[in-house]
């Protein structure tokens, strides 16, 4: 099973790279058919990625969500999933073109991690942990998409007079609302993640919140996105400012995910 996972994981990376190449061709040559091919390849990549995760789950006899490798590959999976959903829902493949490099960066980070399957310590055997991490993947995926959308928004501003951008990328007001939607999805799931995490921590560590750096940084991220929402609502921080905020918010997400493990070790040090 784990060997199958290895092979599938490699194929997945290759497919994502291929999808990125086709997305870029789409932008360079401005031919819709390339975008369709790219999306199809990404979809096949996502399916194989899912199978790879299932293989790992079966091989390891548990949910594949408990170490840095497993979480990184799941994070890439979540971003790929959410970006495809948004791409399909709002029908603009340029999103795929900008999401693909981020997905590849994250799955590349996964490839650098140890893929060894280790036995879990008893505290990690919990269905709450499964829910906790699964919701985190969707939250991170959604914030990833809002980051990509923020980026596209800023590019859209630079490309005011490009016919391609006008015809293939939603207008700025719409991009802004889509970005807002992805932040909403992310914040809802981040809240879910924090609450299920607290329930698990209470059972496993005897304390639902212990200000461990990972917890603290997820709270910082949560607060940053809450500020984003309020600034939008009351201060009219839409468009450009919101796009910049989405980019900054995602930096917090990445810091929570990778930075904390690297710079601020705590009880979350396994993932």
């Amino acid at each position, binding site marked *: 099973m784990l060997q199958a996972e290895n092979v599938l994981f490699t194929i997945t990376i290759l497919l994502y790279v291929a999808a990125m190449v086709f997305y870029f061709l789409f932008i360079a040559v401005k031919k819709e058919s390339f975008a369709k091919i790219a999306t199809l390849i990404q979809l096949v990549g996502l399916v194989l990625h899912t199978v790879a995760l299932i293989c790992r789950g079966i091989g390891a006899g548990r949910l594949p969500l408990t170490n840095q490798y497993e979480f990184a590959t799941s994070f890439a999976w979540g971003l790929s999933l959410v970006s495809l959903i948004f791409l399909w829902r709002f029908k603009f493949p340029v999103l795929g073109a900008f999401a693909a490099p981020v997905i590849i960066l994250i799955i590349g980070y996964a490839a650098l991690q140890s893929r060894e399957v280790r036995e879990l310590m008893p505290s990690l055997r919990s269905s709450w942990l499964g829910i906790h991490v699964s919701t985190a993947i969707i939250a991170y995926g959604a914030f990833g998409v809002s980051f990509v959308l923020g980026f596209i928004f800023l590019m859209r501003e630079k490309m005011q007079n490009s016919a391609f951008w006008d015809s*293939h990328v939603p207008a700025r007001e719409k991009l802004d*609302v889509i970005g807002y939607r992805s932040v909403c999805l992310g914040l809802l799931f981040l809240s879910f993640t924090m609450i299920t995490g607290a329930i698990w921590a209470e059972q496993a560590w005897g304390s639902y919140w212990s200000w461990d750096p990972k917890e*603290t940084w997820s709270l910082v991220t949560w607060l940053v996105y809450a500020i984003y929402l309020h600034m939008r609502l009351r201060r009219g921080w839409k468009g450009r400012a919101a796009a910049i905020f989405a980019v900054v918010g995602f930096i917090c997400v990445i810091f929570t995910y990778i930075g904390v493990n690297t710079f601020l070790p705590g009880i979350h040090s396994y993932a």
Partner: protein
Amino acid sequence: MKFGILLLLVLALACALGSFIPQGHTLDWYLQNYTERQAALIYGLALDDVFHSVWFLVLAVILCCNLLLCNLLHLPGLLARWKQAGDPEKAPNAAACEAPNQAQPEQIFEKLHMPAPKRIEADGKTSLFSVKNRLGLWGAWVCHLGILLLVIGFTLGQTTTEEYTVYGVPGQTKPVGDTDYTLTIDDFGVEFSESGGVQQYTAQLTMRDTRTGEQQSDSAAVNAPGNLFGYRVYQNSTGTAAKLTVTMDGKLMQEEVVCVGDYTYVLQTPLMIYLDGYQEDYFEQRPGYAYSTYYMGQADQGGVQVDGDIALRYGSVEISFSEPQDYTLLQVKADHYAWLVLVGGVILLLGLFLAFYLPTRRVWAEQQSDGSWTVYGESRKGGALFAEQFREAAGLPDPRQTMSAPPEASGENNETESR
């Protein structure tokens, strides 16, 4: 709200600070790792324990007041909006979308997935009205209520939680801190998986109320704490214990189980003995016990005793360790407000869901004197997306499109092309 945003920002900064500055060290530690001025600042501003500092507590209290006030102040307006949203009489909002000259307004309602509209005849005029997701109006309010309860529960919990540790081996009964309860460890076992890793630690426990004699039993395992007399009992960790035997002239004077890390007075001597550690295969497949002794409070001697030998002699007193066994370390805790945090969390989730996924929408239509209809639409959250859906449902052209790029394609599901 401006103040609210500032508060959130300050909280975020405080949290970041508390995660960057290592927490809970001594002043000496900060002096060693920071400059003198920085260390003084850290200590002076309680940055060594941000999350339990008074100023952090004050921030939490201000947040609660702010949320409470915000919700109270918004309540009347919200109730009015709630009533208004369901009231077809209310005039169209200036920001509403508008589609004049429609022949079949019902189709627009349908395409926008609105509930079947109500037909209203008044003053000789016919109109249609439909509202969807009115509950969504309450999203932010419910969300703030959830946060309020959560923060109150968390803060009260922090200041009132009772917490004790109890450790021992099966058969032992220990007091639970200074409470009126005792905890008896009826059994303790470690389960191993096939590959030899630890699968689970489980303790069987009985708690007794010494005032009434009432007893309750439960098990506590990792990820499955026990519940006894309102306390949560967590299987926290485990270690090795051994039987300490003290004899004098061959007569048994003292026999008790001591855990690694325990200091124990040795009766009949001025000594205190400390069990440093235990190794299963220390010498010729016999276990070894590392110990040290203290004489009148001063470290005296230490060594390793092999199972079956005597650790040390003091006059005619012989001291030895035997029968290694696992002890369990239990955490006994009563957080009387944890339920409030959970309730707050669930309400928060509900509020976020209402706010984000049930955007209130109103669509209504008025019949004009020439028999045609004008359809109006309004969405509190939808913005550009709703406007676009409305346009598509009503078959209106995109205003930008008519001014700039040539239309490549048209039709409902061709947004990519028509953008």
